[in-house]
């Protein structure tokens, strides 16, 4: 089993409000995350000695070149490449660096820009396999890959579109209270069901809207957070896995299923102790799989689970309490940070939208890097309020 994280904590969750399109560089959005981290924590370029960056649209830049760009002189840097899992894989590395004394305060930031046509460019440079084995087939991108997965999932487990719709509709309700959400109008199940087809069985409200934005948080020792008067959360357990179940014909399970037992064992808690859950929701089906693979319900039973529980922030299973990406928008790699940043806000009593009452424990999971047939990276963490 992985070693515990001792007194390493997460603080200063920040979200740079998203925009549908932006002509600014990714550097701007990442820089805005740093300025918000400074406003929130009081820690500036002289205090930050570790930098973790996650971005798809950095172009020629890297975590290393950004140190000069942002006036930092860190003694530890890292660049995350796991997309939708990057909020948690960044945390895992940063927390170990702080725990071992290789850094005192690590700024973990993720962000992307989105000029008009930017999403097409992003897919063109995404991966060798996407270019070779997915884009030549009509350039559906992730919509096509997830349509294939969703159809197979529905056939195997009997889920219907209205089951996925319940998740989308409850997240829209959460988003209406979250000031940064791109989607501002209520969504009824009828609208979800009647929206236009993107790639059968996926319709419009199954898909995220690409946008520009950034997210960030700080990792430090608990005593540092206390010195600066920052609310914080503790790290009970983490896990990540890449290219699991490689021989599955269609992806109906994620690598989280490999490591879920170890995750809960390290946390010393069962799934039923979680007061809030944030899954990576670029399509509803993948949230269903995360809930199943992490043990919130049996495999194939997310359909019943979502019908039996209220997924809104004030419900009995608060899920994607910011509205998630489905209602908040997908700011590239920042989508992989949205869940952890929102969880830290909820667990420190600083929600921007509706606050989950008495939130003590939270689960965050991530999923990313759709190559051509499968998503390759997944990660999860169990967090505990420091209050």
């Amino acid at each position, binding site marked *: 089993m992985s070693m515990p994280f001792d007194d390493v904590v997460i603080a200063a969750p920040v979200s740079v409000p998203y925009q549908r399109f932006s002509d600014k560089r990714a550097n701007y959005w990442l820089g805005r995350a740093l300025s918000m981290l400074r406003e929130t924590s009081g820690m500036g370029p002289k205090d930050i000695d570790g930098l973790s960056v996650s971005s798809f649209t950095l172009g020629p830049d890297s975590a290393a070149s950004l140190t000069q760009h942002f006036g930092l002189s860190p003694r530890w840097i890292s660049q995350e490449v796991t997309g939708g899992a990057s909020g948690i894989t960044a945390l895992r590395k940063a927390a170990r660096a702080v725990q071992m004394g290789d850094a005192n305060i690590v700024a973990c930031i993720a962000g992307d820009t989105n000029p008009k046509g930017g*999403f*097409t460019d992003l*897919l063109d440079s995404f991966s*060798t*396999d996407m270019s*070779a*084995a*997915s*884009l*030549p*087939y*009509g*350039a*559906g*991108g992730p*919509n*096509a*890959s997830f*349509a*294939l*997965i969703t*159809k*197979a999932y529905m*056939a195997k487990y009997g889920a219907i579109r209205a089951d996925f719709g319940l998740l989308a509709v409850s997240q829209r309700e959460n988003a209406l209270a979250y000031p940064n959400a791109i989607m501002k109008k209520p969504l009824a199940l009828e609208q979800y069901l009647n929206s*236009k*087809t*993107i*790639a*059968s*069985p*996926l319709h419009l409200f199954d898909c995220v809207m690409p946008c520009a934005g950034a997210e960030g948080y700080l990792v430090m020792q608990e005593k540092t957070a206390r010195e600066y008067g920052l609310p914080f959360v503790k790290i009970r357990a983490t896990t990540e896995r890449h290219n699991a179940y490689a021989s599955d*014909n*269609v992806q109906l399970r994620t690598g989280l299923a490999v490591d879920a037992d170890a995750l809960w064992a390290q946390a010393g808690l069962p799934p039923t102790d979680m007061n809030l859950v944030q899954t990576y929701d670029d399509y509803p089906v993948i949230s269903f799989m995360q809930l199943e693979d992490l043990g919130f319900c049996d495999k194939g039973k997310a359909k019943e689970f979502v019908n039996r529980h209220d997924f809104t922030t004030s419900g009995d299973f608060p899920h994607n309490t910011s509205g998630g990406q489905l209602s908040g928008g997908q700011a590239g790699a920042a989508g992989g940070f949205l869940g952890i940043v929102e969880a830290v806000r909820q667990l420190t009593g600083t929600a921007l939208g509706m606050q989950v009452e008495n939130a003590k424990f939270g689960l965050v999971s991530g999923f990313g890097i759709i190559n*051509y*047939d499968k998503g390759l990276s997944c990660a999860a963490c169990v967090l505990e309020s420091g209050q």
Partner: protein
Amino acid sequence: MIRLQVCNACKSTHYPERDICPSCWRDTLDWQQVSPLGRLTTSTVLHTSVKPEWADKLPLQLGLVKLDAGPNILTFLSASLNTGTLVTLTFNDGVFTAKETL
């Protein structure tokens, strides 16, 4: 027959193109003729594309095929086919198309 990479050492077949054999890590991949037969495991009708050049070709029938030779291939479908249909792949102009095996 279709051409895919086969490892001369461990005989495993791979798609998309690899640089070393992902099964045994030897530098012994070779392009060879393999069986074009497989089974459709899932499908979709694509109504939107991120690239404008596809706009007038939509909607497109796509599917995922598990080849008897091993790999999964995302492919065009010659028609709307049910999951489980036995299919034969052809390769033209850089893309695969699957049609029902007769």
